[in-house]
């Protein structure tokens, strides 16, 4: 048996070396790998930094929401990141949506309620494309989950805009961003220093806003994360004890088998 393990181990090393040399050569023409950031939601005990998530919501509301929807979320969900019922009512009231038909058969506009989903910035995809040079701003509620290394990618993208190298011709209407696949992105640089005024006095640098909105969108993609991780710990502890007990029982039952 030992012989096989040694052999298997050697083989794995060979495969690993092969793979790493291949992947090193394959990535040179595509987008830059995202910056590696440290996030409060990382790891087995990760949580959402509620202050940061609330600031991130402000960035979303004042900047991103002009073009990007947050379709899978309702206003009431904001309670998870520490907004009170009254605050959520206030937030929702600022949006108008079409409801109906009423008893007279008419559609009518009304202010949004906490139970409503986040109101879309555009009535439909065509309207969104018409307003954005043909590009369709994706919905952000799952953006962190729908991109490889999502949180780092989003942060890198938001902070990654800079002037294009001289050998790259930027198409009209596009911006250079080395973290975007193809390096030319239809979204103009969305953040500038001091663009929002944080209520808690935090300085609104591009990096700070990018970090805050990433934390907010991480929450919007996986609102169950804190619950999931804390439950996971209990389940794992239970299973370790379960396994040890059964192992002891197994040893006792098997002790006469020669």
């Amino acid at each position, binding site marked *: 048996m030992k012989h*096989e393990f040694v*052999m*298997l181990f050697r*083989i794995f090393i060979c*495969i690993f070396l092969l*793979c790493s040399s*291949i992947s090193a050569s*394959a990535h040179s023409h595509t987008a830059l790998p995202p910056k590696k950031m440290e996030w409060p939601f990382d790891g*087995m005990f990760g949580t959402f930094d509620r202050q940061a998530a609330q600031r991130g919501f402000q960035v979303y509301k004042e900047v991103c929401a002009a073009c990007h929807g947050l379709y*899978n979320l309702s206003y009431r*969900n904001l309670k998870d990141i520490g907004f009170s019922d009254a605050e959520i009512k206030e937030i929702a009231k600022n949006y108008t949506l079409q409801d109906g038909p009423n008893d007279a058969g008419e559609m009518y506009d009304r202010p949004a309620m906490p139970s409503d989903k986040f109101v879309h910035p555009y009535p439909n995809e065509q309207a969104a494309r018409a307003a954005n040079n043909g590009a369709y701003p*994706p919905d952000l*509620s*799952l953006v962190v*989950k*729908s*991109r*490889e290394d*999502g949180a780092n990618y989003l942060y890198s993208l938001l902070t990654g805009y800079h002037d294009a190298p001289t050998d790259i011709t930027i198409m009209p209407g596009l911006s250079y961003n080395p973290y975007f*696949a193809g390096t030319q992105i239809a979204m103009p640089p969305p953040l500038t220093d001091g663009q929002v005024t944080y209520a808690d006095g935090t300085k609104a640098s591009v990096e700070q806003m990018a970090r805050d909105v990433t934390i907010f969108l991480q929450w919007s*993609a996986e*609102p*169950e994360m804190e619950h*999931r*991780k804390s*439950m*996971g*710990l209990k*389940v*794992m502890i239970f*299973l*370790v004890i*379960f*396994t040890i007990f*059964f*192992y002891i*029982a*197994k040893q006792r*039952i*098997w002790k006469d*088998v020669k």
Partner: protein
Amino acid sequence: MDSKTNNVNCNKSCSIIEWIDYRLPFLSFLKHLQHYRTPKNLSYLWSMGSIAGIALVIQIVTGIVLAMHYTPHVDYAFESVEKIMRNVNYGWLIRYMHAVGASMFFVAVYIHIARGLYYGSYKTPRELLWQIGIVIFLVMMATAFMGYVLPWGQMSYWGATVITNLFSAIPLVGENIVTWLWGGFSVDNPTLNRFFSLHYLLPFIIIALVMLHLIALHTHGSNNPKGIDVTEKDTIPFHPYYTIKDFVGFGVYFLIFAFFIFYEPNYLGHPDNYTPANPMVTPAHIVPEWYFLPFYAILRAVPSKLGGVLLMFASIFVLFFLPWLDRSPIRSASFRPLYRISFWLFVIDCLVLGYVGGKPPEEPYLTISRIAATYYFFNFFILLPFISKYEKPLPLPSSL
């Protein structure tokens, strides 16, 4: 059997359980576990069968609950899955158990198959047992493929498009078959509906096949790490010895399972599947789930579409003939020095195929996949018959 004799003579002192058992021998079936003799030297690798059984049960239970909240319609499927994740109580847990559970099921089954290969469990008198297992594996693959389509994300849609299009390679009637499979002229709502229906049906067919698998298993009993026929004194009752040992295996399995559910639930999936399906936008790389990657690599290794499809199906169907390709009467690789090497080379070959299957179809991956696919068939059609003819096995022990 003794309970029957009891019952024939049982007049007044007949318990309810005995009364029932005389008419429906349920208790006798449970007693079968106690009387069922098992070789005493089975390692934890032999727990993989019951672990796979548990994995099937978990998939069915979580799947039935998911189906209560899921909507199989192209306009609502993606949204209904997000509704499960966000608004159904513990919906995220049930869905992650189901999604991670599929991967864990394949892990268990692949180890189970590899164990069968290493210890020659496919050899006489267990050929049918092995073949039923391969049928189970095929039905599992179909079930998993259709299940992956249901969330109606980008990979669901494009995976379904690529795989169903394979049938267009069939000469003359290929295109008609694809239209028939789709229920239309592209992957669309009728396709999603029938995939949901079949995804719900096939697991129950797997249960029936598992029963056949168990009947075949219990006819001649388990093989064992030494691969020799056992006598009564080398065996112990399945219960309590292997029930308790299997529980230790379950514990370890559940620990790994729980780690993925709670801490890396999307590690084994593809991020693109959190983008709703869009027939107008093709993802940069369409890749199937990890457990299909070796077969996907074989498919793409062949420049002709029909050739690729045939070779891919052949790579699974060849397993049906394994008991006759490997003619050596010795089962366990422990006593077959050359076969042991060929086994590990084959495992590596499958890992290499899996790796290149996940890469874009370009150099150097194409060349690697061609070499690895060639080796895959070389192993079965040339190496195994050759080894089993010329290998000098080590002396077999006379008992465990």
